[in-house]
């Protein structure tokens, strides 16, 4: 195969993949602002009526999703950052087992995790019926991302020698954590935080099992609208979701790239 034909094949596959991802998303965005989808956007015109209706019907799900995502960020940070520090400081079998164990939610389907939570805590009504129940599921699912993101930065900045440096100057463990580890981990914390928020806002597998009619999140509301609303409203709702998630995603990718390029000349 010549270089030229190799180039053509690669280029076509890339463009096809782009089209495959873009076209349905564009269809959905257009449908959300079309007066009547079956007549077409040109014939029936453009409107924000559907977006307005989505706001009336589903604004509570949007606020709840944002609240849960924020709570999830706080909890994963409080639990995950010290844990990542501990994993970095004490590498060994036990640390590896701990890391492996808390990463289980990455390999066990969300449905199974949700069932497990329901079996154990489903009967505690005050908990089961509140948004806290969903929050616990989200923390479970996003925790590995926070830990890994912070851990990755710790190893690129060579925390080991920075720690030894601080210790040689007389700093206690707490001072080393506060003065050295934490300030230097911020790119990883930022990347982890954005990942946690993005994943939490988009989480469906766990949430669908854990939610109640009074604790619907955005993706649960979406599923609901796909099943019961007219196509334009479902599309407008999807549009609202895009508007929330795509900037977060862009920020998350930017932060991850930044975290990965520490220590390299710019």
């Amino acid at each position, binding site marked *: 195969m010549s270089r030229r034909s190799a180039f053509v094949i690669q280029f076509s596959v890339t463009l096809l993949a782009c089209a495959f991802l873009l076209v349905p998303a564009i269809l959905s965005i257009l449908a959300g602002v079309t007066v009547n989808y079956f007549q077409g956007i040109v014939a029936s015109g453009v409107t924000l009526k559907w977006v307005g209706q989505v706001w009336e019907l589903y604004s509570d799900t949007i606020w709840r999703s944002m609240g849960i995502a924020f709570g999830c960020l706080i909890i994963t940070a409080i639990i995950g950052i010290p844990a990542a520090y501990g994993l970095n400081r004490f590498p060994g079998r036990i640390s590896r087992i701990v890391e492996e164990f808390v990463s289980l939610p990455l390999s*066990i389907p969300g449905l199974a995790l949700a069932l497990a939570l329901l*079996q154990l805590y489903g009967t505690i009504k005050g908990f089961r019926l509140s948004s806290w129940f969903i929050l616990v599921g989200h923390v479970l699912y996003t925790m590995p991302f926070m830990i890994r993101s912070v851990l990755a930065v710790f190893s690129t900045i060579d925390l080991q020698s920075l720690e030894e440096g601080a210790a040689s100057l007389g700093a206690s463990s707490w001072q080393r954590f506060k003065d050295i580890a934490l300030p230097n981990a911020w790119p990883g914390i930022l990347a982890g935080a954005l990942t946690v928020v993005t994943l939490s806002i988009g989480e469906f597998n766990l949430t669908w099992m854990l939610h109640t009619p009074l604790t619907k999140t955005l993706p649960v509301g979406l599923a609901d609208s796909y099943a019961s609303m007219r196509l334009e409203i479902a599309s407008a709702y999807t549009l609202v979701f895009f508007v929330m998630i795509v900037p977060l995603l862009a920020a998350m990718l930017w932060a991850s790239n930044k975290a990965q390029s520490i220590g390299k000349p710019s």
Partner: protein
Amino acid sequence: MFIFFCFLPLIVFSLAFLALPLVRLFSASVEGELGWSIYGEILSNPRYMQSLLDTVLVSLAVTIAALLVATTAALFLTHNRFRGRSLLIASLTFPLAFPGVVIGFLMILLGGRQGLVNNISSNVFDTRLVFAYSMVGLFFGYLYFSIPRVLLTVMATAEKLDPALVEAARSLGAAPLQVLRDVTLPGLAPALIASGAIAFATAMGAFGTAFTLATDIDVLPMVIYTEFTLSANIAMACALSVLLGLVTWVLLMFARSLTGTSIAASG
């Protein structure tokens, strides 16, 4: 001592909300009428085994397809600089965090009864082309959310590969396909296995897409959901969850063991 306090919150949280629930899930699965024989029942029930097989097959197919497409695109985007490149990258990564339900909806817009593909084929070729509400739709849906994940991982690794390696191979007379086979792909292998494993695991457990597309697509998560809600067969839902979790976990461990040596060596 300080390190112990660093681990403490994580350990408490994981015990309360991960370890204990998983134990409970297992014990709930054997507390039904069937007791322990529920697992025998699953293994001898053709419907369950068929859905497990279908789930594994569609996940494998998606993983392979996503690896092929995304690696090709990733290499193209790594090796060529041109105007609009970052636009292409952006349009290949934006669905990264879309939930399965949204992707199911997008597939309906693409391949459903009122979908774009059917519109075009009806008007131009006068034939109906509807694929959204079946395994084919599910395959495309899973492919939709797997491409961005694989692409990002492979691109990150491809950018770190030393371009001198490719140049060295070419200087020794290797043809493009030989360079790809002998230099580029081996360098990408850890990224391919890691991202393939993630794509596979996500497809195994995904539930939203099938849920939106149709209720009669019998992938295992859908079967579990039906057992739980419609049949209220809690023990069976739990047992099937245990099975799904185990199968996914074991296959991922196997994939990891393929890269195991290189990971251990770098650590």
